């Protein structure tokens, strides 16, 4: 791979537009930068709530929490009822992911405004931000932003003196990756173990305290104010037809300048690694990338032209996931990477259902045999088999996930796995 181009690559910032530019602890600076403009307009003009949902639908905004579900459609599926909730998923536990933290720490009012607009659209008057317990600074900043917004009349029984009531509460997680799964997160807010619920019913009909609940990711909600302020057509001017807008990517690992960048959806993987990540460290060659976090895909050099949007990535055997891009140079080992991923799943399996609890542990045992050189070709096949069984029989997407990194790693790097089998660990190159 060639080193990155000289000209500094330009980002397109929507959700990160103010990060690093304003004092995140100052309401007045946020307001000067445009915070609460959209919600003020909506409330003052008494725009029909259905219009807000329709605008988000038209914008084509898709969930940035990983799955890419159309946000406006999700909102329109919210069941009728007197009490509804907006839950912001800020559990951010996908390895290699810290985009939500940048928003929480750098522009908390943008997130709050996104939640308010979501509340206005679906008829909810209470929102929760569920933040992983390790994010102490995010928790402090968002709490301060909520306190300031209340004092400023943006949150409360009468938002900006109108009949729209909306308030937001912070909920602190306590260390469990699975709580990022929306139903597990709901259980956790309710004070219980974070065991995922069977779906359906979906949170949109039976959610928090059994009430209709919209669960959206931080980055998703942070896109909402700009869309309402500037319109769906403006938003569609960025990205691709099926994935409009921008995406925050985290470029990590063996690159010169690891960092997070916000670029248009559909930006090629190569551009992200070379122009933004500064290319492979120390002039080495690109070998592989793990896309989308632990529940992601491992791709080789053939994937460098992959357009990074929901469908472009999927069509070429990749996945967008959380936007994490972990780059491996020619010296790194895919076998070791996969082993780390499988240990992660074993550690994070919540143990509620047998296929995942037992399967995750068997996968690590098999992978341990492979990396120590004790494995046979049968073990490699079993690795795939066990992950397939987990995919078919696990209760929640966590147990259904390991097949993706396993299958993609074995497909693209089979020789590396086979080389490990031929000779004991340490004897090879």
């Amino acid at each position: 791979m060639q080193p990155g181009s000289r000209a500094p690559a330009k980002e397109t910032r929507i959700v990160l537009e103010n990060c690093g530019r304003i004092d995140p602890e100052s309401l007045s600076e946020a307001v000067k930068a445009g915070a609460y403009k959209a919600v003020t307009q909506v409330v003052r003009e008494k725009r029909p709530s259905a219009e807000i949902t329709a605008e988000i639908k038209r914008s084509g905004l898709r969930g940035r929490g990983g799955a890419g579900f159309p946000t406006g459609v999700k909102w329109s599926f919210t069941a009728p009822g007197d009490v509804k909730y907006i839950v912001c998923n800020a559990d951010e536990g996908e390895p290699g992911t810290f985009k939500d933290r940048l928003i929480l720490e750098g522009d908390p009012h943008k997130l709050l405004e996104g939640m308010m607009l979501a509340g206005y659209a679906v008829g909810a008057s209470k929102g929760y931000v569920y933040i992983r317990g390790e994010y102490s600074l995010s928790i402090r900043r968002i709490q301060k932003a909520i306190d300031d917004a209340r004092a400023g009349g943006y949150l409360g029984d009468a938002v900006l003196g109108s009949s729209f009531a909306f308030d937001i509460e912070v909920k602190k997680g306590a260390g469990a990756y699975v709580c990022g799964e929306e139903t597990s997160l709901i259980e956790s807010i309710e004070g219980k173990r974070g065991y995922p619920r069977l779906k359906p019913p979906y949170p949109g009909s039976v959610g928090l305290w059994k009430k209709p609940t919209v669960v959206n990711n931080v980055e998703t909600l942070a896109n909402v104010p700009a869309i309402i302020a500037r319109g769906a057509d403006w938003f569609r001017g960025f990205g691709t037809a099926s994935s409009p807008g921008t995406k925050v990517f985290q470029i990590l690992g063996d690159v010169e300048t690891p960092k997070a960048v916000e670029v248009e959806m559909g930006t090629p993987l190569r551009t992200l690694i070379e122009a933004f990540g500064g290319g492979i460290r120390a002039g080495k060659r690109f070998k592989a990338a793990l896309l989308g976090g632990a529940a992601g895909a491992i791709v080789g050099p053939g994937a460098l032209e992959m357009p990074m949007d929901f469908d472009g990535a999927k069509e070429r055997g990749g996945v967008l996931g959380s936007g994490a891009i972990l780059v491996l140079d020619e010296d790194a080992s895919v076998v070791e990477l996969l082993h780390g991923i499988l240990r992660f799943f074993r550690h994070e399996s919540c143990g509620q259902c047998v296929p995942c609890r037992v399967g995750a542990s068997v996968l690590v045992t098999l992978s341990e045999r492979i990396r120590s050189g004790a494995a046979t070709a049968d073990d490699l096949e079993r690795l795939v088999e066990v992950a397939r069984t987990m995919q078919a029989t696990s209760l929640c997407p966590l147990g259904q996930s390991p097949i993706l990194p396993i299958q993609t790693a074995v497909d693209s790097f089979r020789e590396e796995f086979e080389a490990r089998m031929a000779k004991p660990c340490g004897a090879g190159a």
Partner: protein
Amino acid sequence: MNELLRKFPRSMESLLDILHAIQDADPQHHLSDEALQAAAEYLGAPLSEVVSTATFYTMYSRMPRGRHIIRLCESPPCQLLGGETLLDILAEDLGVAVGETAPDGAFTLETTSCLGACAEGPAMMVDDRIYGALTKEKVLSVIAEVRRSDATR
């Protein structure tokens, strides 16, 4: 204890916050049997439910821990950057294995999944502070610094 609990609404929704508060206030950073009993009584919930929640989450500990808790990230992005060797260095310097507390009660060594500091990996958390770009030297100097600030208190 009761003074601490009174700040929270008497609803199961408060449980995670209550457990955090109890543990943060405890010099040994853990949830004792008495503390869980008190939380259950305060919430009017069965003790079994409180215990069930308390034992699910990795940030809570039923075992007494040290004054400082070190949590080294062991997720793939940090591992790729050499995080794994740091565990041995920490274990040796502190004289403990993962999950153990040093005999002088100063440190407990734990591992954790991704801390969201991966652009500056390898990373670890000491109490509620995150340290990145770790090398052997940096790890040792962070520990030495914490020891020094303890000694002057």
